[in-house]
C-alpha cells in the first residue's frame, strides 16, 4: 500500500502559499552563498593568514566587550523600570511605560549624534554654558548610545513577563518560609529568565549589527571595520571574511540563547483564574524610584529631543535646507514603502506555512526568514553587493537591490505578529468556506484574512518605520546620489556638521515616533 509521499502532500498546498514562501526562503540564502563564494575566492592559505591576523582578534574582543557593556547597562536601565511600572505603587505608570518605549523610534545614530554634539568646542554644552567637555567617543560612547536606544526591547520583554507572573507562586514561596529577598532570587528571577534571554538576544543582535553608532563613535567593532575595509582597501577578501566571522558570531549567539532557554516549562501549570497582584509600596524609597525613572527617561528621550531642538533654535535651517529634507523624505519613502508592502506580502504565506502546515520544510522557511533578520546588515549589504556584481550586474546600484535587502532583513518583523494572529484563527473556518464552494485562495481571503488584517497592517507599518530609519544597508547599497534621511543625517554628523544634521535627524525621529504607539499596542498584546 503506497504511503502518502511528501510530494503528494506538498502538491495539495495552494500555489499562493508555496511559491512566495519558497522564493522568499531561497532569496535569504542566495546572498549568503555569494558572500561565502567571494571569501573563498582566495586560497585557503591566504584565508588562514587573514583569519589569524591579530586585527581579527582585536575586532572580536572589541565587539564582544561592546556587547557585554551594552547588555549590562541596558539591563540596569530596563529591569528596574519594568518592575517599577508593573509591581510598585509608582504613579503615572501608563505614561512612564509609553515614554520608556518611545526611544525605539530614535535610531542609534541619532542618539550617538546627540551624545557627540553635547561635548567639544563647538558642542552644545559649550555654546550654551561655555563648558567644554570632551566629546564622548570610543567604547564608552558606543556603550552609552547603544544602551539608550536598545533598552526598550528588554524593558518590553521583562514587563510582559512580570505581568504574566502568577502571584500565587510568590505567595506559596512565602508560605514555605522564604523572605522577600529569597523569593525574588528563587522564584521571580528564574521565571524572568526567558524574557531576559529573549531581550538580551535582540539587543545583542542590534549591537552586532549596528553600524551607525560605532562608526560615529569611531569604535572598531566588526561592522565598522568591515565597512572601512570594504571602502578603503583594494582587496575585498578580508571584508568578505570578516563579514562571515560576524555572521558566524551572530549565529553562535542565537544558538546559545536557544540552548540556555532549553526545554523548561515556565508557564503556569495549574488551572484556575489568576489573581490580581498586590503592588509593592515604595514608601521611603519613592524619591529614589522617581529620581531613577526621571534620569533614565531624561537620558534616553530628553537628551536627543533637547539636543535636536536646541540645534534647530541655535542654527535655524533655511528654506533650502527644509526643502532638501523634504526631498530626502520622499526618496526614503520611495524605497521604504515598496519594501514594507513586499515584506508583508511575503510574510503572509511564510507565516501561514509555519502556523498551519505540518510538512517537513515549512518551519525551515520561517527559520530562514529569521536568519535574514539576524544577519548583521553590513554583512548582508556586502553579500548583496557580491551577489549583484556576480549574478545580476544590472541590479547593482539600483533601488530594487536595496528594497530586496530590506525585505530579507525585515521579513521576520512582519512574520511574528501575523503568525501569532494566524494561530488564533481556527483552520476550520477555511475548511468551512471550502465546503461551501470557495477555492483555497478565496477561502483564505474571505475568512482568515479579515481576522488577521490588523496584525498584517501593524507588521507592514513596523517594517515601514524600520526601513525609513535604516542606515547601513541604505548607506552601502543605495544608488550613488540616492541620499535618504538616515544617510544625510549620518554623513553630516560624521563630518562634524551637527547643526546641518539636525533637521534630518528630527524628521526621522518624528516620523518614527508616529509608529511607536502602534508598536506598543501590539507588543503589549503579546
Amino acid at each position, binding site marked *: 500500500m503506497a504511503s502518502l509521499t511528501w510530494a503528494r502532500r506538498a502538491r495539495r498546498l495552494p500555489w499562493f502559499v508555496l511559491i512566495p514562501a519558497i522564493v522568499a526562503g531561497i532569496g535569504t540564502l542566495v546572498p549568503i552563498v555569494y558572500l561565502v563564494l567571494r571569501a573563498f575566492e582566495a586560497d585557503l592559505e591566504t584565508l588562514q593568514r587573514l583569519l589569524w591576523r591579530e586585527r581579527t582578534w582585536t575586532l572580536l574582543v572589541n565587539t564582544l566587550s561592546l556587547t557585554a557593556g551594552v547588555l549590562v547597562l541596558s539591563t540596569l536601565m530596563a529591569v528596574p523600570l519594568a518592575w517599577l511600572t508593573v509591581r510598585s505603587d509608582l504613579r503615572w505608570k501608563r505614561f512612564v511605560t509609553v515614554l520608556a518605549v518611545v526611544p525605539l523610534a530614535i535610531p542609534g545614530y541619532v542618539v550617538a549624534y546627540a551624545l557627540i554634539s553635547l561635548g567639544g568646542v563647538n558642542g552644545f554644552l559649550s555654546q550654551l554654558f561655555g563648558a567644554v567637555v570632551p566629546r564622548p567617543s570610543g567604547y564608552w560612547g558606543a556603550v552609552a548610545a547603544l544602551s539608550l536606544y536598545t533598552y526598550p526591547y528588554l524593558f518590553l520583554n521583562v514587563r510582559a513577563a512580570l505581568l504574566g507572573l502568577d502571584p500565587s507562586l510568590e505567595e506559596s514561596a512565602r508560605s514555605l518560609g522564604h523572605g522577600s529577598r529569597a523569593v525574588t532570587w528563587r522564584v521571580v528571577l528564574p521565571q524572568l529568565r526567558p524574557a531576559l534571554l529573549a531581550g538580551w538576544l535582540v539587543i545583542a543582535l542590534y549591537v552586532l549589527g549596528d553600524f551607525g553608532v560605532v562608526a560615529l563613535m569611531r569604535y572598531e567593532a566588526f561592522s565598522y571595520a568591515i565597512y572601512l575595509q570594504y571602502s578603503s582597501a583594494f582587496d575585498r577578501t578580508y571584508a568578505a571574511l570578516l563579514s562571515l566571522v560576524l555572521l558566524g558570531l551572530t549565529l553562535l549567539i542565537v544558538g546559545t540563547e536557544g540552548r540556555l532557554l532549553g526545554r523548561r516549562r515556565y508557564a503556569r501549570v495549574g488551572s484556575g483564574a489568576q489573581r490580581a497582584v498586590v503592588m509593592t509600596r515604595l514608601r521611603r524609597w519613592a524619591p529614589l524610584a522617581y529620581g531613577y525613572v526621571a534620569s533614565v527617561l531624561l537620558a534616553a528621550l530628553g537628551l536627543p529631543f533637547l539636543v535636536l531642538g536646541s540645534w534647530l533654535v541655535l542654527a535655524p535651517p533655511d528654506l533650502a535646507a527644509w526643502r532638501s529634507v523634504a526631498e530626502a523624505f520622499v526618496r526614503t519613502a520611495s524605497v521604504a514603502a515598496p519594501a514594507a508592502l513586499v515584506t508583508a506580502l511575503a510574510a503572509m504565506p511564510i507565516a501561514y506555512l509555519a502556523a498551519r502546515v505540518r510538512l517537513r520544510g515549512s518551519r525551515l522557511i520561517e527559520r530562514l526568514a529569521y536568519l535574514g533578520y539576524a544577519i548583521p546588515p553590513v554583512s548582508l549589504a556586502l553579500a548583496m553587493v557580491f551577489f549583484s556584481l556576480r549574478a545580476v550586474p544590472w541590479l547593482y546600484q539600483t533601488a530594487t537591490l536595496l528594497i530586496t535587502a530590506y525585505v530579507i532583513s525585515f521579513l521576520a518583523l512582519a512574520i511574528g505578529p501575523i503568525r501569532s494572529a494566524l494561530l488564533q484563527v481556527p483552520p476550520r473556518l477555511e475548511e468551512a468556506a471550502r465546503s461551501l464552494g470557495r*477555492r483555497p485562495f478565496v477561502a483564505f481571503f474571505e475568512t482568515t484574512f479579515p481576522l488577521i488584517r490588523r496584525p498584517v497592517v501593524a507588521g507592514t507599518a513596523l517594517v515601514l518605520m524600520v526601513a525609513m530609519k535604516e542606515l547601513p544597508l541604505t548607506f552601502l547599497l543605495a544608488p550613488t546620489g540616492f541620499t535618504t534621511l538616515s544617510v544625510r543625517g549620518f554623513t553630516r554628523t560624521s563630518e562634524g556638521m551637527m547643526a546641518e544634521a539636525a533637521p534630518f535627524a528630527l524628521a526621522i525621529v518624528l516620523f518614527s515616533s508616529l509608529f511607536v504607539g502602534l508598536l506598543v499596542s501590539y507588543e503589549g498584546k503579546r
Partner: protein
Amino acid sequence: MVGYGLYTACASMSDAALPHRPTPVVELSGLTKRYPRTEHVAVDQLDLTVGSGEILCLLGPSGCGKTTLLRLIAGFEMPDAGRVRIAGATVADADTWLEPERRRIGFVFQDYALFPHLTVRQNVAFGLRNGSKAKRLQHADAVLDLVGLTIFAGRYPHQLSGGQQQRVALARALAPAPAVILLDEPFSNLDAALRGSTRTEVRQILKRTGTTAVLVTHDQEEAMTFADRIAVMRSGHLEQVGTPEGVYSRPETAFVASFLGRTNLLRGEGHGSVARTSLGDLALARPAHGQVMLSVRPEALTFSPNGEGVRVRVLQREFKGHDLTYACQLADGERQRLVVQTGPSCTVQAGDIVGVVVAGAAVPLQASAATRARSSPGA
C-alpha cells in the same frame, strides 16, 4: 448548477417511508488513511455506502478514526488508498482528487466554525453563489426560517447561544443544497438539557429537506435516536452496520454489544439453535457451533417470582427512576457476574438470593474486525 430546491426535494418523505435500497450518495471502498511518521492507521480499508436521504451515524470511541473518515469524505484529508464517490462521481482515488469546494458537501463542525466577522445572514448566504445578491440573501432568510432563526439574521455569531450557533451552522451547510451533509459531533458542545431538543429539531430539518447526512458521534444514545443506520467503528474498521434496533439487539461482536449499552457476556457451547451456558440452555438469535461468546441484554433477564432458573446473589441495587438495575453473581461456584434490569417496582434487595430466567434469545458474537486484522498481518 442545481437550484436551491430545498423544500421541494423529497419534502414529502417521512421517516418510515425510506426506500428499501436508496440510490447511493456516498460510496467508500477500500478507504485507507495513515498518519505520517506513525504506524497508526486511522482508517483501514473501509467500505461503506450511504443512501439518498439517509442519516448514517458513525459511532465509536474517541480515536477510532470516525472524524478522519468524515474528513476524508469532505476532502479535508487525502486518502492513502481507496476510493470516495459522492453522488455517483468519483472524488478521490489513486488518480482523482477533487478539492472539497467541488464535492457538493456541507460540513457542520464540532465548534461550528461560524465566520466571526459576518452576520448570521451573511454566514448562511456564504455558500450561495448563484443569482443576485438580493436573491441570495432572500434564500438565506428562507433557510434561517427553516431552522427558526429569522429574528437573529442581523446578529453576529458571538451574540447567539450555543444552540442557536449550532442551528446557524446547520443552516449555512444546508443553504447550497449539498449532496450530503457531514456533521462532526455537532451536539457535543451543547449542555445536556439542550442536546436532546436540538437533536430532535435537527433530525426533523434533515428529514423535511430529504438531506443525506453522515454524523459522527461517540454517544450511543445520540446515535440510536438520530440515525437511520449506525456504523459502529473501532480502530479504523467498521465493526457492524445496521439499523439502531438491529445493532442493539443483534450485535455481532462483543465490542458492539457493550458499546451500545450494558450487556452480559457469557461463555457457552453452541449446538445449532441453542447454546449450553451457566444460565442453562439458551435459545440463540442465530445458529452457532462450538465455543462461543454470547450477549444477553440486562432487560432480557428477569427475576423469577417462585425461584425458577439459576440462583444468583444480588450484590447491588441501583434505582434510576424509570427502571432498576441489579448487579448479581451466580450463587454456585462460578464467579460469573450478571446485570439484570427490571421495572421500577421490583422489591428484590441487595443480599437476596433469587432465581433468574432468560426471556429473550442470546446473541452469539464473533471476533471483532479490528482484532481479526491485527492477528493476520498478511492482510
